[in-house]
């Protein structure tokens, strides 16, 4: 367009150089120049990728004008008439020949074709064939032909092809215009082969200019050499051909080398892509523009449950649950209208279908990938089932916690460590505890928690919490609050501090519970205990009374029962002494029986008193040498019957801890029995000692009358006697007393014996029966 403009100016200024570049060459006519301007304008207006509206309209109008100008001129040549189009178009005065000269027929043809090409720039047939390109190829060939003619000064060209006569700059401009129009739609049609990033384009872009320039250049050199007479035509042709071959081989060699490197890089890149694709930890699927799966990595095959390679070629909807498939096809089309990288299904549940029919919750990221024949889509699929499970578990846990918190018989809180105890979280338990809703206390909206604390307790609470915080330990305290209805409640609180992260604020978290009931219960318990103690004292006093009464009873038994007995015995004795002759033998016999009875009753009373005393006596444990006591008792027994000969064996140093007085009564009874029941034995023998072993027992053994083992359990029952009074006298209280002594010491007493083969009484004391037991 610019050059067209300059030529127009040349015509106006009558500058010969601008008109024809070289005198004798054809000139560019004004119509030609004007048509170039219009073509340039049209190309400029139509060069946008997708232009519309007035701009495109203006572009097409310009193209149409060019078409009309070229077509009309061509028509005039054909009809061999002058339609005077030049005169119509140029309002300038006809100042001489040539100014309004017609453009040559070649130029007119070229403009006709160019105009058509511009008008059909966006047109294609079957989406592949673009008429524009073929029209432009025709223009280009014509222009190239004309240009080459100038170069080789082929005068005959004009005669050979009469319609030519195109100016040199016209021809060059047509070349430029052709390239320009082709370049206006670089991604479409045949031109795309050149502009693609693929190897072919790469090669063509390098080969084309070099080939064209070299072939033309070498041809020109040859021609010039021939003209200069350096060589004849045959040699020239030889040189020309050889140079061409060599040059082309060099060019092809060079380009092949370059292409090899580029291809290696490409293959490397492809390999790297494949590795990355396969190694990606997420399932990746590349969907071809037609909706079929082009690529799927191993993760994808694993996720969807397919064998390696099985996904290739399947419709992508195969992976969509059946109920969503129809909708998905629509979504896919929508996406391709406005392809952009985004995450699918944000905020809602997406599911993918596995080969076995199960559904997998997934998250999908989409990205458009430019591809041959449209836009492919790369989908990155993440199996979120574990995340969903974890989320579900978290939700469940949170829900459980929330339920727990809201059902707690108290208030869970989180608050700031400030004078208001500003609450940042507070559970529903707040209402029952304080009468206020949690919202009232949150951020001190209605009132601060500190306001609820009983005025007398506020300082204590503050001090207690600060002290605990300073020592970084939890705090537990009890204080009073005033609830909404004015009641004073005791509350129990436990809490601890959550240190703010990175210098953030400290928070206190804890639990507050109404402790009034507990305090009441504690008070009730204290009262009950006091009551219990009082009753125990009462009972003890009663028992003491009873004991005193019992003692008084024993006392009177001891005193009052024996007194009449002594009277009976005394007067019987006096009767026997002073009135024996009056009584007669029979009378004396009866009186003796009376005396025996009273004496037996006296013994009975004495034994009963002993038993009673054993029962009442409080243990006064001390170190007791049972061997010493046994020896003393045997000596006393021996004194009552000095004539008896009994073999005595007493193990020395049997020392225990116990009540000396009671232990004496115990041994007195056991040794006394042994003494008594050996009275009819030929070689009487009495032993006292301690058995060996862990469960050692003390024993008193004799070889006397013994007893029937069948009655062993009756031995220790008061008044139970296994022998008749004729055989051995006794009250039947002795062993009962002995048993009681042992029991008072926390021990056991058992008897072993056979009739006529002696008896052994074993006893333990207070669990202490081992050797060396001491106080």
């Amino acid at each position, binding site marked *: 367009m610019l050059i067209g403009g300059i030529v127009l100016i040349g015509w106006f200024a009558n500058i010969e150089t601008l008109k024809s570049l070289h005198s004798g060459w054809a000139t560019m006519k004004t119509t030609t120049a004007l048509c170039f301007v219009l073509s340039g304008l049209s190309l400029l207006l139509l060069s946008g990728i997708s232009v519309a509206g007035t701009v495109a309209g203006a572009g097409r109008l310009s193209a149409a004008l060019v078409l009309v100008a070229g077509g009309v001129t061509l028509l005039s040549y054909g009809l061999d008439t002058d339609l005077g189009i030049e005169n119509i178009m140029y309002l300038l005065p006809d100042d001489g020949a040539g100014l309004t000269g017609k453009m040559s027929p070649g130029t007119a043809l070229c403009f006709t074709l160019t105009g058509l090409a511009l008008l059909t720039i966006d047109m294609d047939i079957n989406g592949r064939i673009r008429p524009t390109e073929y029209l432009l190829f025709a223009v280009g060939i014509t222009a190239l032909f004309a240009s080459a003619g100038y170069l080789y000064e082929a005068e005959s060209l004009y005669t050979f092809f009469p319609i030519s006569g195109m100016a040199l700059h016209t021809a060059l401009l047509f070349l430029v215009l052709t390239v320009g129009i082709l370049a206006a739609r670089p991604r479409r049609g045949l031109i795309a082969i050149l502009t693609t990033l693929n190897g072919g384009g790469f090669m063509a872009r390098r080969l084309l200019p070099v080939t064209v320039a070299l072939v033309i250049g070498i041809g020109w050199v040859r021609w010039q050499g021939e003209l200069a007479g350096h060589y004849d035509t045959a040699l020239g042709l030889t040189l020309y051909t050889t140079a061409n071959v060599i040059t082309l081989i060099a060019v092809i060699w060079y380009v092949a080398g370059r292409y090899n490197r580029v291809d290696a890089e490409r293959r490397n890149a492809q390999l790297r892509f494949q590795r990355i694709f396969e190694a990606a930890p997420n399932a990746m699927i590349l969907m071809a523009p037609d909706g079929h799966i082009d690529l799927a990595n191993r993760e994808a095959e694993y996720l969807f449950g397919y064998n390696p390679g099985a996904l290739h070629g399947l419709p992508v909807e195969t992976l969509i649950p059946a109920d969503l498939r129809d909708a998905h096809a629509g979504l896919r089309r929508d996406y391709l209208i406005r392809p952009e990288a985004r995450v699918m299904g944000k905020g809602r549940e997406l599911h993918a279908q596995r080969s076995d029919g199960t559904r997998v919750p997934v998250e999908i990221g989409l990205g458009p990938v430019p591809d041959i024949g449209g836009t492919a889509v790369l989908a990155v699929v993440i199996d979120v089932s574990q995340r969903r499970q974890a989320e579900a578990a978290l939700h469940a846990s949170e829900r459980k916690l929330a339920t727990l918190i809201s059902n707690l018989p108290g208030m869970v809180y989180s608050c700031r460590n400030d004078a208001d105890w500003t609450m940042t979280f507070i559970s529903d338990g707040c209402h029952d505890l304080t009468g206020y809703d949690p919202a009232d206390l949150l951020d001190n909206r209605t009132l601060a928690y500190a306001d609820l604390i009983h005025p007398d307790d506020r300082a204590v609470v503050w001090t207690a919490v600060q002290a605990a915080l300073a020592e970084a330990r939890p705090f537990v305290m009890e204080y009073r609050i005033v609830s909404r209805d004015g009641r004073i409640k005791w509350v129990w609180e436990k809490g601890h501090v959550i240190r703010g992260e990175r210098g953030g604020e400290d928070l206190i978290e804890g639990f507050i519970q109404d402790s009034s009931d507990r305090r009441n219960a504690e008070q009730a318990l204290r009262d009950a205990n006091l009551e219990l103690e009082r009753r125990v004292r009462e009972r003890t006093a009663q028992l003491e009374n009873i004991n005193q009464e019992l003692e008084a009873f024993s*006392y009177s038994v001891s005193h009052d029962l024996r007194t009449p007995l002594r*009277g009976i015995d005394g*007067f019987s004795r006096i009767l026997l002494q002073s009135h024996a002759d009056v009584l007669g033998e029979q009378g004396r016999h009866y009186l003796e029986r009376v005396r025996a009875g009273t004496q037996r009753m006296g013994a009975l009373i*004495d034994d009963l008193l002993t038993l009673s005393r054993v029962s009442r006596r409080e243990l006064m444990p001390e170190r007791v040498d049972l061997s010493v006591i046994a020896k003393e008792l045997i000596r006393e027994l021996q004194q009552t019957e000095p004539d008896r000969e009994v073999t005595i064996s007493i193990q020395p140093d049997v020392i225990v801890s116990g009540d000396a007085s009671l232990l004496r009564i115990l041994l007195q009874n056991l040794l006394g029995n042994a003494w008594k029941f050996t009275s009819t034995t030929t070689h009487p023998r009495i032993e006292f000692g301690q058995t060996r072993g862990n469960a050692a027992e003390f024993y008193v053994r004799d070889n006397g009358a013994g007893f029937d083992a069948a009655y062993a359990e009756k031995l220790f029952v008061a008044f139970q006697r296994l022998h008749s009074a004729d055989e051995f006298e006794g009250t039947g209280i002795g062993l009962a007393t002995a048993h009681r002594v042992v029991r008072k010491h926390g021990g056991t007493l058992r008897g072993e014996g056979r009739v006529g083969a002696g008896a052994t009484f074993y006893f333990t004391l207070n669990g202490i029966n081992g050797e060396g037991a001491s106080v």
Partner: protein
Amino acid sequence: MKTAETILLVEDNPDDEELTRMALRNSNIANTVIAAHDGAEALEYLFCTGEYADRDRDDRPALILLDINLPKINGLEVLKRIREDPHTQLIPVVVLTTSREEQDLVASYRIGANSYLCKPVDFDNFAAAVHQLGMYWLLLNQPAI
């Protein structure tokens, strides 16, 4: 000053009183035995009050045989009063009782009994005991008065 010849027998039980008298007699102890049948009477006798108001205060018994379990005033109380009064505190007192209770025994000695004797049920033993104590306190023992 009169020779101390009387024995004061403080005994509520008439049987025991008679048996004691008999036992003393059998032992050939000829001292006059004056019987008081309760604690109050014993004190009236000793301090010449009440029924015994006309009695000569200086006519002190040579020996007091004192039972513990007595009507009105307990034997231990009687003993206490005897020991508290300078007039009577030097009279030998033998506690003669049926009680075998240790507490009685200890209490008697603590208050100032000179001897404690438990009356056996068997009369022969009883007579022997009375004989011995009579011999000892009335013949062998050198009284302070």
